[in-house]
C-alpha cells in the first residue's frame, strides 16, 4: 500500500523521466540513413502507407524512436511475427543501414485454454478454443462446459469468424454458440417458491440455447476500444411446456486499458469497461429488458508483490432470461460462498468489490458484494480466500481456500485453476 501511495506521489516526477529518452541520446542519430532493408516477402504484405513511411526515412538523420515505432507498426500489420531491427555501418562514411528482421513467432493455428476452474461446490468448468489465422482472417472453434459464470451449467460448442483490419485496430465478425443447459435443484426450488408468475417474476429454465452475435470492435486510440453488435438468442424452455423463445438484444461496449511500466516504480495497470445489452420488441424479442454492467480494476506490481483492487456492478431493468441475471459466489466473486446459497436465482442488481494481494507464491483475497432484485432486500456478504499461486497475472494457476465472513458455522470452499 505504501508503495502504491509512493507511486502516486512520484508519478508526476517520473513521467517526464520515463518519457525522457530523446533521439539525440543515441549517438548514431547524427548519421544519415543510407538504406532500409526489409525481407521482400514481408514488404509486399505491408500497407502502402507504412511502406511509404519506411522509404521516407532514407536520406534522413537516424531517429531510433521513429525506427522503433515503425517496427511496432510492422509487427501490428504482420500479426504473429516478431520484428527486430539492427543498425549497421553504411557503405558511405557517416551513413548507416537499418535492417528489419522478421520471423514468425507463432504458428498460424493455436489452441488456447481460456478457462479451467474447479470449485468445490460447483465442480469443474473448462474451455478450449482452437484458432486458425491467415492474413487478417481468423476462424475459431471451441468446446466448453461452464458452471461458474452463470446460474446454469452450459456445455456445448462455439465458433466464430473475425476479420482484422487497420493494423488490428478494427475487428469485425460473428460468434455462434450452441449450449445445453443443466440446472441445480436449488434453482427449480426457488422458481417454484416465487409468489406468482407476473411481469416481475423470474422466467423459467431452458434446455438448450443457441446464440449468434455479429459485431465489431474499434480501437479509437491506444487502449480505448468501442464495440457494437446484435445478440440473437433462441432457447427452448422446459416448463410449463417445451417451446422456443427468443431474446434479441443490441449490444454496445466501451473498454479502457492503460499500462505504465516504470523502471523503479513498478507496473501499473488500469482497466475499466461498460457493457449495455438492450432487448427490444423491434428485434422481435420475447423478452424486453436493458442490462447495464460495468467494471473497473487497478493493479500494481513491483518485485514479488502485486496488489489489485476491482469493482464490478450492474443493473437489469425489465424481464430478462436467467442467463442475463447477475450472479455472485463463484471463482471470481464472493469466493467463500456458493452462488446457489447467495441468490439461487441471481439478481437484477449487483455490486461487488475485491482486493487481491500476492507476494511471490502467496495470495490472499478479500471479497464483498451484494446481489438482489429491484425493490428487494439487499444483504452485503464478505469473504476471504488465501492460498498459493504461480504468478501475479490473472491467468496464473492458483489454489485457494475461501471462507465466508459471517456468524455461525462456515464451511471452506476450495478453488483450483486459472483465470480467477
Amino acid at each position, binding site marked *: 500500500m505504501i508503495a502504491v501511495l509512493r507511486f502516486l506521489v512520484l508519478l508526476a516526477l517520473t513521467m517526464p523521466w520515463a518519457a525522457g*529518452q530523446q533521439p539525440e541520446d543515441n*549517438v*548514431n542519430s547524427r548519421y544519415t540513413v543510407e538504406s532500409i532493408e526489409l525481407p521482400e516477402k514481408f514488404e509486399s504484405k505491408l500497407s502502402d502507407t507504412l511502406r511509404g513511411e519506411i522509404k521516407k526515412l532514407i536520406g534522413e538523420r537516424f531517429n531510433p524512436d521513429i525506427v522503433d515505432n515503425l517496427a511496432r507498426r510492422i509487427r501490428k500489420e504482420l500479426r504473429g511475427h516478431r520484428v527486430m531491427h539492427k543498425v549497421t555501418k553504411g557503405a558511405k562514411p557517416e551513413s548507416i543501414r537499418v535492417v528489419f528482421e522478421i520471423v514468425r513467432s*507463432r504458428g498460424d493455428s493455436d489452441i*488456447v485454454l481460456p478457462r479451467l476452474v474447479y470449485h468445490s461446490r460447483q465442480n469443474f468448468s473448462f474451455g478450449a478454443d482452437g484458432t486458425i489465422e491467415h492474413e487478417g482472417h481468423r476462424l475459431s472453434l471451441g468446446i466448453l462446459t461452464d458452471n461458474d459464470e452463470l446460474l446454469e451449467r452450459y456445455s456445448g460448442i462455439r465458433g466464430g469468424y473475425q476479420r482484422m483490419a487497420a493494423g488490428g485496430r478494427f475487428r469485425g465478425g460473428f460468434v455462434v454458440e450452441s449450449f445445453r443447459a443443466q440446472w441445480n435443484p436449488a434453482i427449480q426450488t426457488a422458481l417454484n417458491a416465487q409468489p406468482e408468475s407476473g411481469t416481475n417474476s423470474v422466467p423459467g429454465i431452458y434446455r438448450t440455447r443457441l446464440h449468434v452475435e455479429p459485431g465489431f470492435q474499434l480501437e479509437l486510440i491506444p487502449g480505448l476500444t468501442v464495440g457494437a453488435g446484435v445478440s440473437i438468442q433462441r432457447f427452448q424452455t422446459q416448463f410449463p411446456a417445451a417451446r422456443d423463445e427468443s431474446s434479441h438484444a443490441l449490444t454496445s461496449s466501451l473498454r479502457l486499458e492503460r499500462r505504465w511500466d516504470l523502471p523503479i516504480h513498478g507496473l501499473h495497470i488500469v482497466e475499466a469497461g461498460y457493457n449495455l445489452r438492450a432487448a427490444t420488441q423491434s428485434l422481435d424479442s420475447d423478452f424486453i429488458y436493458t442490462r447495464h454492467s460495468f467494471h473497473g480494476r487497478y493493479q500494481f506490481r513491483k518485485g514479488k508483490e502485486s496488489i489489485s483492487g476491482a469493482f464490478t456492478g450492474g443493473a437489469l431493468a425489465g424481464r430478462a432470461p436467467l442467463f442475463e441475471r447477475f450472479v455472485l459466489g463463484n471463482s471470481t466473486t464472493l469466493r467463500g460462498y456458493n452462488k446457489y446459497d447467495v441468490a439461487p436465482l441471481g439478481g437484477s442488481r449487483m455490486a461487488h468489490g475485491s482486493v487481491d494481494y500476492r507476494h511471490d507464491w502467496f495470495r490472499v483475497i478479500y471479497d464483498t458484494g451484494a446481489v438482489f432484485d429491484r425493490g428487494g432486500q439487499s444483504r452485503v456478504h464478505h469473504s476471504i480466500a488465501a492460498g498459493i499461486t504461480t504468478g501475479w497475472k490473472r491467468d496464473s494457476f492458483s489454489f485457494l481456500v475461501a471462507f465466508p465472513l459471517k456468524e455461525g458455522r462456515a464451511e471452506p470452499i476450495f478453488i483450483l485453476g*486459472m483465470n480467477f
Partner: protein
Amino acid sequence: MYWMAASLAALAVAPLVRAQQMKAAWNGTELRVSAASLGLLSGKPLERLKDGATVAFDFHLSIRDGPAPVRRAFERFLISYDLWEERYSVTRIVRDRAQRRSASHLTPAAAESWCLENLFIATGGFDPDRLFTAQLEIRVEEPRDSNPVIGEPGVSLTALIEIFSRPARSQQQRWNLETARMRLNDIRLK
C-alpha cells in the same frame, strides 16, 4: 568433486554479486563510489548496443546500517555505441532537460566510470561516525517482450510448447556491489 561444485557455484554467482569490490569516498557533502570494472557492457546489453540500440541502465545507490536503506539515490543512464567511431556515449537522464549531462568517445571502462562519477548520495545530517555499508544495484532495462505467452484470453498451448522447447530465458540482468562496513570519517577525501 566438492571443489568442482564450489567453483561452478562461484562462477555462477560472480557476475551477480561482487561484494567488497566497490570503494566509497566522501568529500564532506557527498558520498560517491567507484569500482575497478562493473562489466556492464557485455553480454546481451552489448549485443543490443552493437545493433545500434540505446540501452538504459538504472542505478540505485544506498547506504544502510541494517536491512533498510537510510539514504539512497536513483539515476538512469542511457548508453549507445557509435557504429563508426566504435566508442560509447552516455547520457544521464534528469527531469530538467537543461541539466542533462552526457559524454561521448568513451571506452567501456570510461563509460562505466562516468556513470559512477555522476551518482552520489548527499550526506547532510548523516553522522560521520555512524557505521554503514554502501550498496549499489544496477539493472538493465529489458526490451519489451513482443510475444507474451500468457495473454488476456488465456494460456496459449503453442506458446507454452515454444517456451519449453527453448533454453530458459535469463532473468533481467543486474549487478550488485557492496562495500565493507565503514564510517564517513574513514573515507573522507584529503
